[in-house]
């Protein structure tokens, strides 16, 4: 660490000297906004983010800001944004579609409530007591219509305050082989495209090939019901492990491993388990297993799932197939965020493992079974490290799949995947984040391929750090929103395969989406107007200055 601290201390000395001498010259120079570093991921991993932020940097420069594009790999970017919340100014970010996010609670609450500003998802540092109240209220408002009013209001506030600089909801385009699968045996899930659980159990092989072979750019890191490790990993979990409820294709929680889910009161819900379910090793699935699965995250050993069971005060077993969950307080999203999220794990296997964990410093995430046992519609067959994961259909499942295998191959070369879907090495192109018009082209040339495009539940946005001026000023944020030309981003960056975004709630969630949001898109002219009205000025060199009386207090991020 020595050379690092040497540099730090010499910088400190320089800074001290400059401040002392500069203090004498208290001039207009202090009102000049510091160089702003616009952080983006590299072009290879996130071409859309890179291009969008390059464009924004150019536009900010037009406004008189010394904006500089800074490319950092994903890990460094998330490190900065997440762990150094007082250092970054503006960064590209995105929220991905996950079935649990079909309920608005996660986005509305976790992202913007003041309680999560320190180390939670509110990394932008947005604090608004009015918003807090609404976010808290919607959590406990069980009546859908009442709740809807609150959610609409919340979205309005987010736009008024220009909290995020939203860009687009991308379109998810997925191609599959119609020589192998019956067309329309795929299921389009709200905001998720056809790459989802329902497709996997419904897709119908009509030829000789009975396996579904899909691709992923990332490898699987772990197969562990108590670990949230990666996007691809979650595809595998959804198939191997069952849950009490699942998010339906329409985006609402419906009973799954549970025969019925009955609310006895605002804080008590009775679960009746389906009869005859078995684990992949043959043992029966009972209420004991369910209780264990929900109580395990309450111990210290499962940090990632703890928040989803926090609201449960106790799980009561009534009989072999019946349980009652007692909650500490009402939670409107309980079904989506907890019952549809917690993986059911066999107590006879994990019980002893957890006992053992008590004696060791590691937690449950460090455990990797050789053959993970679940009760889902697919069972584990093979895991070729860094190459593929193979699952066999579990014929005894109540919703047994029609394919006999589910195979995900890790292909790092995106261009290869285009070749592979054509030559049959893949029959379901699940991950393709390249140029979608190319995909369309491919499909039109190949009669055996079919493409389904859906608007993503997730969205891309430009994160602005509310902790650092001028981003703490809503007028400044609004100006940035005004110059972020969404039409341009949709056309140039996404080649038309995206939809402008103005809310954390996607158009796919018709019930919750506020359609009447006014999103400023007036370009440089409107931006300058917002700034003038808020007191900003420009000096004779065209540089943007803080309103009079305000000086630059922060140092550049880099």
């Amino acid at each position, binding site marked *: 660490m020595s050379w690092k601290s040497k540099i730090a201390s010499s910088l400190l000395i320089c800074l001290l000297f400059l401040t002392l001498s500069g203090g004498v010259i208290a001039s207009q120079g202090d009102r000049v906004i510091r160089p702003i570093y616009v952080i983006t991921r590299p072009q*290879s991993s996130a071409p859309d983010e890179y291009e969008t932020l390059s464009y924004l940097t150019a536009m900010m420069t037009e406004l008189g800001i010394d904006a500089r594009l800074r*490319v950092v790999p994903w890990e460094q970017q998330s490190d900065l944004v997440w762990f150094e919340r007082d250092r970054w100014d503006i960064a590209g970010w995105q929220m991905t579609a996950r079935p649990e996010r079909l309920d608005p609670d996660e986005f509305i609450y976790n992202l913007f409530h003041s309680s999560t500003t320190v180390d939670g998802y509110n990394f932008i540092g947005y604090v608004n007591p009015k918003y807090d109240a609404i976010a808290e209220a919607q959590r406990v408002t069980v009546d859908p219509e009442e709740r809807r009013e609150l959610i609409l209001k919340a979205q309005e506030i987010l736009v008024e305050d220009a909290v995020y600089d939203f860009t687009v909801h991308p379109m998810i385009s997925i191609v599959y082989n119609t020589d192998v699968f019956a067309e329309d045996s795929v299921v389009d899930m709200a905001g998720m495209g056809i790459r989802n659980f329902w497709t996997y159990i419904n897709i119908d092989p009509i030829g000789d090939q009975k396996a579904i072979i899909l691709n992923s750019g990332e490898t699987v890191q772990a197969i562990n019901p108590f670990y949230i490790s990666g996007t691809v990993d979650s595809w595998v979990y959804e198939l191997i492990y069952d849950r009490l409820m699942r998010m339906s294709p329409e985006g609402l929680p419906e009973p799954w491993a549970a025969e019925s889910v009955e609310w006895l009161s605002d804080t008590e819900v009775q679960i009746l388990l389906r009869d005859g379910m078995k684990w992949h090793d043959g043992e029966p699935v009972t209420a004991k297993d369910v209780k264990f699965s929900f109580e395990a995250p309450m111990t210290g050993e499962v940090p990632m799932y703890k928040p989803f069971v926090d609201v449960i005060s106790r799980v009561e077993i009534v009989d072999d197939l019946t349980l009652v969950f007692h909650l500490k307080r009402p939670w409107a999203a309980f079904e989506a965020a907890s019952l549809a999220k917690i993986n059911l794990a066999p107590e006879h296997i994990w019980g002893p493992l957890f006992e053992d964990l008590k004696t060791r410093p590691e937690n449950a995430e460090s455990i990797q079974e050789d053959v993970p046992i679940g009760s889902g519609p697919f069972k584990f067959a093979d895991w070729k490290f860094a190459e593929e994961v193979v699952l066999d259909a579990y014929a005894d499942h109540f919703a047994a799949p029609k394919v006999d295998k589910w195979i995900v191959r890790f292909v790092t070369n995106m*261009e290869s995947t285009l*070749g592979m879907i054509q030559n049959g090495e893949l029959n379901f192109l699940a991950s393709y984040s*390249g*140029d979608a018009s*190319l995909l369309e082209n*491919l499909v039109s040339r190949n009669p055996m391929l079919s493409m389904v495009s859906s608007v993503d539940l997730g969205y891309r946005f430009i994160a602005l750090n509310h902790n650092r001026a001028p981003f703490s000023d809503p007028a400044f944020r609004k100006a940035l929103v005004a110059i972020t030309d969404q039409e341009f981003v949709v056309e*140039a960056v996404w080649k038309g395969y995206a939809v402008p975004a103005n809310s954390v709630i996607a158009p796919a969630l018709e019930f919750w989406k506020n359609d009447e949001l006014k999103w400023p898109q007036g370009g440089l002219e409107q931006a300058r107007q917002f700034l003038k009205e808020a007191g900003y000025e420009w000096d004779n060199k065209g540089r943007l200055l803080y309103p009079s009386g305000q000086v630059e207090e922060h140092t550049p991020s880099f």
Partner: protein
Amino acid sequence: MIEMTSILEFFRQDKFALVGAIIYILFILVALFAPAIAPYDPQEMVRVDGRIAFNREPEKNFKFGTTNMGRDIFSQLIYGARPALTVGFTAALFVMVVGTVVGLVSGYFGGKVDSLLMRLTDVAFGIPFDPFVIVLVSFLGPSIWNIVLAMALLLWRDTARVIRSQVLSIKKRAFVEAARVSGASHSRIIFSYIMPNILPLSLLYGSLAIGWAILTEAAVSFLGFGDPSSISWGYMLHDAYVSQALSRGAFYWMLPPGICIMLLVMAGFYISRGAEEVLQPKLRSM
């Protein structure tokens, strides 16, 4: 010391070296006069009739077509000569200077100094090259200078070994012995007798290093660790890869940068080919 005439003679005699030199000169000229030759700014998203010209095939206005984001490939190709030559020559300089000094000091003074420097060289040999460059670039940030630095930290190793071998064999020669016996100072022996004999070897490895440096920069850019502000040929290939150029059949995008890299690297090899007798088995070149 090396005379100008002998260098020119060398180039004139060996056809390979001549061709290599011509290629270098051509690229240097292109790099110097890039703003005059290139029709557009390499970063500019060109518009035709108000719309951005994405993925255009080669035509009158765009000699090599345009990229996925509407940038002129020909202009990028021209400007790409700059980072290529910068990286190449800077790395080569480092390699030559550091490698020669280490080899010279090690071979001439022997003993503990030799041992120490050779251990250092062993360490440099033991570290896998491409991964190390990537680690350092992730550490220091994706700038062209960091790539050069990372390469320079390891690339001198071959030169050092080879120079040292050569110095050892020169040291044993009669005229050096004679000079030493007659009381000549170290610096005199080094500059008058040893340097002239190792300089050609030094230059040889320097010209090889240009090629290695350019190829490494291309690989690093390809993997996404390159410098987006200076569009090198490696970066162009990365861009093409990331935009699925091959699937689009955009050979006009995929081929030219690769060919340019090939030509410049080959030029370095051609020049070194001329010094055939230097590639001796004893010296274990890369």
